[in-house]
């Protein structure tokens, strides 16, 4: 029982970067733009957040830096795809390559300047970011470790998911954004500023991804800089968007499931289930593929999927 609770807690920890990546990508895709640069934006956010934390010793500044830097890298994507109408897939892929390279480059540069030969976050920010849960509540048996024992990233991520849910479904602006994603021509005719909405959602989506990157650099790697620290999680987030059916609240559950699948291999004794680790590594993708098959078999139109995803909107071509 105790081990089960610890397993769930570990699954939450493993799923958190995925949650950010997924939420960021959902935000972006709602405007009809498929940004495959999640991995790159997360890397940029990882680098900026980590270094800001390293030099300022402030968790809040680290989050801001991660958000800002990743949004800036999303701006590159925005300019290329919204204004210049470059191919979205290609732009996203190059953003990934660029983001990882830039992040490693700056990381190694900073490493070269450090005297100790290692970049380790100072004590102050380490205490803040790990912040082991909500005092008082975390000591409740069972519910305490399951719900109230996490670091700040986890709760911020859930708050963002709820905010996005409310935004998409309950606000006029959110509905406008979805209109842009479904049919930009109609949205434009209705007087919605299509370009403005697209830029806003791409930038905010990128920024959210960046916080997930900061989680990779700061929590997963224990507060010491390692190159390639996002390690492919951004790609899983792209798959998770489909798993979550473009719904922010589903993303919470989805990232928990994917997080659990990522750590299952370390918790299931081989004597109980003699499966190779590669089997577990494959599971998230297998499940996503199955979900794709199932959804494509459904007759009903999927309204969560932005209808104009991946296509450009050029006003004069209408």
């Amino acid at each position, binding site marked *: 029982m105790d*081990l089960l609770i*610890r*397993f769930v807690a*570990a699954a939450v*920890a*493993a799923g958190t970067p995925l949650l950010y990546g997924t939420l960021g990508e959902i935000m972006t895709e709602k405007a009809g733009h*498929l940004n*495959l640069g999640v991995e790159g934006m997360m890397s940029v956010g990882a680098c900026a957040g980590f270094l800001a934390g390293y030099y300022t010793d402030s968790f809040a500044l680290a989050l801001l830096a991660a958000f800002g830097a990743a949004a800036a890298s999303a701006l590159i994507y925005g300019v290329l795809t919204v204004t210049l109408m470059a191919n979205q*897939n290609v732009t996203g*892929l190059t953003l990934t390559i660029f983001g990882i390279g830039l992040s490693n480059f700056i990381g*190694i540069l900073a*490493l*070269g300047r*450090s005297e*100790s*030969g*290692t*970049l*380790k976050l100072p004590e102050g920010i380490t205490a803040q970011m*790990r912040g082991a849960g909500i005092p008082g509540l975390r000591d409740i048996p069972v519910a305490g470790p399951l719900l109230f024992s996490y670091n700040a990233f986890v709760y911020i991520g859930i708050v963002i998911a709820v905010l996005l849910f409310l935004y998409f479904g309950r606000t006029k602006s959110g509905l406008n954004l979805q209109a842009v994603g479904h049919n930009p021509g109609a949205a434009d005719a209705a007087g919605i500023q299509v370009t403005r909405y697209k830029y806003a959602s791409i930038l905010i989506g990128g920024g959210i991804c960046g916080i997930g990157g900061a989680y*990779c650099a700061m929590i*997963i*790697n*224990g*507060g*010491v800089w*390692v*190159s*390639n*620290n996002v*390690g*492919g*999680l951004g*790609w*899983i987030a*792209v*798959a998770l968007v*489909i798993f979550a059916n473009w719904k922010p609240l589903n993303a919470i559950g989805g990232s928990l499931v994917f997080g659990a699948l*990522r*750590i299952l291999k*370390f*918790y299931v*004794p*081989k*004597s*109980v289930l003699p499966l190779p*680790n*590669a089997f577990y*590594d494959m599971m998230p*993708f297998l499940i*996503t*593929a199955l979900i*794709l098959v199932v959804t*494509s078999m459904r007759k009903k139109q999927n309204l969560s*999927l932005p*209808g104009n*995803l*991946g296509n450009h909107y050029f006003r004069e071509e209408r």
Partner: protein
Amino acid sequence: MKKALSLVLALAMVLSLTACGGKEDGKTTTAAQNEGTTAAAQDEGTTAAPQGETAAGGETEAAGGAKAGVMPAIAKEDLKIGVIHITDPAEGSGYTYTHDQGIVGMQENLGLSDDQIVRKNNVDDSNATEIETAIQECLEEGCNVIFATSWGFMDTCEALADEYPEVIFSHGTGYKSNGVNFNNYFGRIYQARYLSGIAAGLKTESNKIGYVAAMGKDNSEVTGGCDAFAMGVYSVNPDAQIYVRVTNSWFDPEGETQAANALLDLGCDVIGQHCDTPNPQLAAEAAGVWGVGYNSDMSKDAPKAALTSVVWDWSVYYTYAVESIMNGTWTGENYFAGLKEGLVDIAPLADFCAEGTEEKISEAKEKILSGEWDVFSGLIETNEGEVVCEEGQTLDDATITGGINWYFKNIVAE
């Protein structure tokens, strides 16, 4: 739309696959090595020179006495050394970093100037064209000695050694050599792991010790190291048990952290590791327990957790090799040194090690150094109850490098 979407998803999957694949290929190298090593060792009997340079495999030099050099001496000022790295030494820790520290140490020991060393970093060791280009570039810059530090560079080195008989190629890990201008080098890291096991065995309070392994039982290098660590633990604390978690990758920051956390969740209070990042040590530090690092001294990353680290000092080999090239005593033989030569060791013990750790370790170290005993000597039982080494026997080097596919008896079978 759905078509486009599934296309994109498929693309994402393919990409993530290649992304992971590339990384692994990079270092899987050492994984594949074992079969090769065994085969070579059995075929030629030259892979691993038994402990101590005097006993080096009889058949390579029939002349007896002092071995004659097989290559003409290269004067110090004419030396130009090319180093092929799989990643970037600037990472500050890990495999490539320790190799490069060895090159730097050799350079200092011998007083070579900076322009006598040519480095090629981030050379993908699964890409033959890239390796050949890197080495050719070194040769064009006038290199007459090439050190290739990763497994996958082996075949290219072999081919180029034929093509350029005047250039000396030395390849880290691996098993191929031609006995003239192409050899390989590696070390008895298991000796250091045994010593680090003593520190872990004395420190543990829960009698549960975790070990994050890069590769599973089929990899003799990793498994042998894990066994040596477990035997070190057993020598001072027979009640302690070792739990192993395998990441299946030589470099997987996320997986290494998660594996360590899973071990901590089981109640382990010392975490040993055979993987590249300091993440297992950092996980132990965050949990307020201890660990044993690998490759370089990880106390700089996790000062509150690392009891010690199992470290390589490659400068020992690089200095020895380059010196022999300068003296004209280069024999082209393979190199497999250990504690005695200083190629492997443990980092200085942390002051929070259990009392008596230092004495126990130096005792064991003495025995290994004197040559009266080695780690894989005497009765060895596996965790499946099999006896793999009888009282009075010692495993031979071919078995140590390629044939350890069992876990020692205090490693939990699960």
